[in-house]
């Protein structure tokens, strides 16, 4: 299965992936409508300092501890993609407690959100990957 991989050697720390993510998940038709004057709450986040930076989003683990730990049965694996049913989520933060990557966070509604590889929106390629100007975020199959 194709997953998102990042290489800190190529990351410029420009945060564009965060903006593309927030736009792709906004359901809005234009980037301006989606992002202007708003504090974005993306599912991919840049970490780092002036020297090193890298993007972190859900790794779509083959044995995901978040799915095993979710108290509401809101997280599940669909064709390899770790998905969240926000309708079932109660915002208890157990997934935040267990995810070793820190890749789940509250949405603006209080229930959790996570990267779902843009399967529900962009189609084909995750928006962060398409928007990365330096190919530091790659979408491919690795063994």
């Amino acid at each position: 299965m194709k997953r998102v991989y990042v290489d800190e050697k190529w990351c410029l720390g420009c945060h564009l992936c965060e903006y593309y993510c927030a736009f792709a998940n906004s359901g809005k038709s234009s980037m301006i409508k989606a992002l202007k004057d708003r504090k974005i709450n993306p599912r991919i986040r840049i970490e780092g300092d002036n020297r090193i930076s890298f993007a972190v989003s859900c790794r779509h683990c083959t044995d995901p501890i978040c799915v095993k730990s979710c108290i509401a049965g809101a997280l599940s694996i669909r064709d390899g993609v770790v998905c969240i049913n926000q309708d079932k989520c109660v915002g208890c933060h157990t997934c935040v407690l267990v995810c070793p990557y820190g890749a789940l966070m509250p949405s603006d509604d209080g229930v959790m959100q996570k990267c779902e590889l843009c399967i529900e929106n962009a189609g084909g390629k995750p928006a962060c990957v398409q928007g990365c100007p330096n190919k530091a975020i790659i979408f491919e199959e690795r063994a």
Partner: protein
Amino acid sequence: MAKYVIIGNSTAAIGCVEGIRSVDTDGEIVLVASEKYHTYSRPLISYLLEGKTDLERMKYRPDSFYAEQHVTTKLGVRATAIDPTAKTVALENGEILPYERLLVATGSTPFIPPMQGLETVEKAFTFMSLDDAKALEAALTPESRVLIIGAGLIGLKCAEGIEDRVRSITVVDMADRVLPSILDETGSGIVRAHLEKHGLTFYLNDTVAQFAGNHATLQSGATLDFDVLVIAVGVRPATALVREAGGEVRRGIVADDTGKTTLPDVYAAGDCAESFDISCGMNRVLALLPNAYMQGYTAGVCMAGGQAHFDQAIPMNAIGFMGLHILTAGTYDGETYCEKEGENYKILFYKDDLLKGYILIGDVARAGIYTALIRNRTPLSSIDFALICKKPQLMAFTAKARHDLLSTKQ
């Protein structure tokens, strides 16, 4: 003969079904449970009363689950005895179920301490099952004055669930602080103040000396009038089936890291069983949903002849009250690193080059990075300790470790 019999229908039982099916796609599974409901999430009963979920959404697995997993269910029927020699389970309806492998996932039951005059209280409830929640809900009115005995996880979650729909909530606990099982004094003080801001009244270091109808006299001499009583002092592992069958039971059913009990072909998982807590090096009952699932899943894999070990168990809790989130994990032992600002609180416990435990209140973002350090027993000397103290972050790891985490398949 059913290949697998499972007693229980909550987290550990469902984990077991999924564990079995990861190895054996068609061996017959029979699941027996005393509750009549489709599998639902126990910890969601407070969210149900709060209106954050409903009976449909709180189902732990979809309606199609049993059919898709080829599980035959016997719901609303209690298992009464295990015969480990004949390898059968007796049910209260007289049925005898033979098994090749058995999982006991009987959970726990609310503990009701002896309290004088308790029988005179008309509306007294425990808060553990869906039926408990439904019964409590039926008794509540906007005018109800609710008395909760127990300022632990269950009592306070119950308080949060009903806060908006009753007149008042008073909580009595013999401990000197709220959530004593998971919080230190400072953390406890923050949570208590937060709950008091939301209208809860506490009597700590105190117990009920006597009930007389809707009237309680406390040990301290204080007197309280109430309409509805909730008893939430704790739970006891439901170990009777295994004990009576001759299996070893300490606090909980003794099980190894594959879930095996001391009875042949009998496994146990979830709140009824002990597991080995790697953060303190002792066997304990870790009555927590993630542990129940993982222990149940492991048992399922092993029951079906696969290889699995549940060898990373630690206590860990995610709980929140009226917008204030609390995440805790591990054992509170060793040196500490501490930060406190308003309702935000962090304390890390470290010893022998390992993170042993932590408490986070308020800002809990990415806490799982801390949890993983405890579960994986990552040597602190292999990461940037100052950075990790500041906040949970992958920057604290070496470039090589980060490459493994972010550039390879997980």
